[in-house]
């Protein structure tokens, strides 16, 4: 057999082919150094990329749902302040965690995609705690605004938003519960809060526009 085409090797590496020709290609690869190396690279690339865990995205849905209900217009200044304060605090914590002296907390990849915990120093921990508290406070402000607007909303719309917010909060709580003192996971929890705040902001904006 002549060397298989790049796309044929790729289909074998990605497990997409299912073609009877696969056995012939595999047979060729065993006896061909070049093709064997190429296939090994293709498989390594695929493994490296795909072994990374996918992130949860359920907390992003409330923002999408709100925008589908009512197209986006201008953001009310009050929401901007609440969201900006939370985001600013988180940015400070992230900068602190990344720029502080000493070794960077890096993920230790393993075949199982299991993550080892990064060492955490008290100052970083305090910065993360402060950022998280600021996010929680910002979320409380926005949740309070939502409670104020909620009675004026269509009951079915309010029910759906309640459900999505409850789900997002539960997800954040679960993420926080397993984060313990792992810097990487704590920073992802902050990302989760950021997404939750953006969703709340969008939801409030749409609520206000629906019921001026």
């Amino acid at each position, binding site marked *: 057999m002549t060397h298989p085409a790049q796309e044929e090797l790729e289909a074998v590496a990605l497990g997409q082919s299912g073609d009877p020709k696969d056995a012939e290609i595999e047979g060729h690869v065993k006896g061909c150094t070049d093709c064997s190396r190429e296939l090994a690279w293709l498989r390594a690339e695929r493994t490296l990329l795909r072994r990374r865990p996918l992130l949860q995205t359920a907390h*992003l849905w409330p923002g999408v749902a709100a925008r*589908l209900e009512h197209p986006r217009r201008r953001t009310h200044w009050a929401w901007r302040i609440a969201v900006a304060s939370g985001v600013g605090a988180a940015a400070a914590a992230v900068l602190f965690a990344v720029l502080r002296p000493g070794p960077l907390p*890096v993920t230790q990849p393993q075949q199982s995609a299991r993550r080892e915990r990064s060492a955490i120093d008290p100052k970083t921990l305090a910065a993360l705690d402060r950022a998280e508290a600021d996010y929680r406070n910002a979320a409380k402000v926005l949740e309070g605004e939502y409670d104020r607007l909620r009675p004026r909303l269509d009951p079915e719309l309010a029910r759906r938003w309640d459900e999505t917010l409850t789900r997002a909060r539960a997800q*954040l709580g679960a993420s926080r519960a397993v984060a313990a003192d792992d810097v990487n996971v704590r920073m992802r929890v902050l990302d989760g809060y950021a997404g939750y705040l953006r969703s709340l902001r969008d939801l409030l904006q749409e609520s206000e526009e629906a019921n001026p």
Partner: protein
Amino acid sequence: MRAASLPGEVLGARDRDSDEELLSRARAGDPEAFRVIFDREAPGVRRFLGDLLRDDAGADEGTQETFVRAHRRLGTLEQTGKLQGWLFGIARMVFLEQIRRKRRESPMPEPAEDFSRTDCGPSPEAMLLSLESDRMLDGALADLDDERRSALLMRIDHGLGYGEIAEAMGWSLQKVKNEIHRARLQLRARLAGYLEEGAR
């Protein structure tokens, strides 16, 4: 934030509906159907945008924007079997808009191509076993040109076919092949370089 289930894992009853059925319901205005599409596809779109933007907040916003636009354009998706590629095409446009905005604010030099180390250096097996491989991969991906990185990720990470990538990128099939080939060479050269540095 915890990791989402990988595609194919633990599907609930509502997850078993076909793309075709879901799209048909979503087009008819069923919000729950679009929610299921979001649940299925958003993790992949979020990862794609995260890899392109390298900014978690931007990737979250980009994911939301992608699905808002997708909802508006549901009627334009002709072949339901191409849902993922279609979403990635929208995500790519969202990414380009974000990146243009960022570049206007702080222009960055284009990365130079360097394939000189492609055929030398450590083996792919060594790459997989290296404890630093995720960090190396991250750095190597960051060095790729945005468009090339998009095409490579669609192919390897998300398993899209060349035809689907061509549609999503608005490129010819030949250009998709060329760009993915070049992206691979560049990625491998970078990864080999990192491994060699680590071995010293």
